[in-house]
């Protein structure tokens, strides 16, 4: 039991470091989509609910789990969809038609 915990702790700590470096590389212009997408992926908590929804359960537990699945479902679909909607709005400047564009200051 203890050794499993240490294994998981190792994964956890290393993942924090990955998160640290990856998130610092996110451009500040995309910080709002970053929040909505982290929201969506943290709803992977749904797998916990799915595991528990498997076997026949006592009714209270099962109800809790189904509610959790619905809540996580809102987040997963809503989170990814709204992120996609935001990201699709980020557009580059259309290429200038005349070569003298890009004036010096």
């Amino acid at each position: 039991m203890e050794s499993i915990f240490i294994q998981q702790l190792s994964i956890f700590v290393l993942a924090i470091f990955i998160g640290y470096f990856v998130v610092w590389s996110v451009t500040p212009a995309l910080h709002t989509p970053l929040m909505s997408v982290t929201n969506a992926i943290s709803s992977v908590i749904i797998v916990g609910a799915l595991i528990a929804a498997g076997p026949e359960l006592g009714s209270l537990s099962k109800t809790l789990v189904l509610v959790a699945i619905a809540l996580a479902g809102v987040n997963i679909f809503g989170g990814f969809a709204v992120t996609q909607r935001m990201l699709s709005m980020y557009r580059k400047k259309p290429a200038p038609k005349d070569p003298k564009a890009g004036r010096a200051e």
Partner: protein
Amino acid sequence: MNDFFVNATALAYLVAAVLFILALRGLSSPESSRQGNFMGMLGMLIAVVATVLSPDLISYLEIGIALAVGGGIGLVIARRIPMTAMPQLVAAFHSLVGLAAVLVAAAAFLEPMNFGITDAAGNIFAVSRVEMALGAAIGAITFSGSVIAWAKLQGTMSGTPIILPLRHLINLVLGLGILGLIGVFAISEVAATGGGDLFWYIIAASFTIGFLLIIPIGGADMPVVISMLNSYSGWAAAGIGFTLQNSALIVTGALVGSSGAILSYIMCKAMNRSFFSVIAGGFGGDAAGPATGAGASDKPVKQGSADDAAFILKNAGKVIIVPGYGMAVAQAQHAVREMADMLKKHGVDVSYAIHPVAGRMPGHMNVLLAEANVPYDEVFELEDINNQFPTADVAFVVGANDVTNPAAKTDTASPIYGMPILDVEKAQTVLFVKRSLSPGYAGVANELFFRDNTMMLFGDAKKMTEGIIKGLD
């Protein structure tokens, strides 16, 4: 057979975790971001399918219905939500993650054998009890805190800080109480059998402290709060991951937790405030405190009309637009972009300068400008554009205030002293769109209003900008 499924599922979770990392990595530039988002979706699909394929699973119908109901609601909200309401939406989403964490932890406590966290006698392992209690506690704090943040952002609840007497003491006692309860929960033999009320007391106390933590924090500090809750939702997921010994959840929780923590740090730094002082609260209400330097309001102010502003802008070579939360409130982003387009037709060089804490959440202004079809390569962060102001003919400040206040650089007594600001006063002319001369959320009068090179344009941001557009014709 069973071993095969266990290993295959674990591998699928690993793939999902890698895809989530790539999803965040994609956000390093707008070009790669859309692809990154698809990777995130793919990762989620793999994680869910791998779990659902497990041979133990039998209640497909109920799961399908729950997922369809939730997913349907999510999709409708995602499609309809106006971009100005994004901070509220994110706060609401955080609350759902928190609540889901509480529910899963409760299910694990009630039926631990489903998760394989019991010993031969059917007792829950002590480590698992600590993990589930921590996951549930952080989830509950995330939930109630996010609900308050949502209410403040939505305007359902006033953004003014609610200061309870002895609140620090109350929070300290509650916090220590929760930790103490978790300790007792870990050694209690009743709790090991899945009985007793301790677990529910922990959740109730955590709901309460989440509520108490956020009510004293003012509306304008919401960028920090919302980042912090983002972080909490990650730690809650990681806590549940430890409970269920699920690596996908642990990795994702760690990623999200560190992401929110970094955003909180960036926001605090942009306000030159310590994380602790924000959490302590009492700052940044809608009704500002006593204004320092209030005597300044006797000074004369140069006031202009939309036509005056149009004339100045038309004859400028280089204009930098500085948007703030006021632009979001007035829904003026489309009008601002239209104005910028007309200026470009007149041969004016237009760019945008964004302060990190402009708006109510990190990156809020960038999304609004993107929504109004402003190309992202015209939009610059503070450190990238601040040296451009001396060469700009006009700084057009719309809906921003404190982030332009030169007092942050000079007045050591000012509450915003030391906060990095946009050097708009270095532009030849500052056009300041504002409703009145009232101070910003920090309660500090902006000396910029009274400078010789400043022209105040009093009025609603949208109406004023539309007036300028007419004047440009």
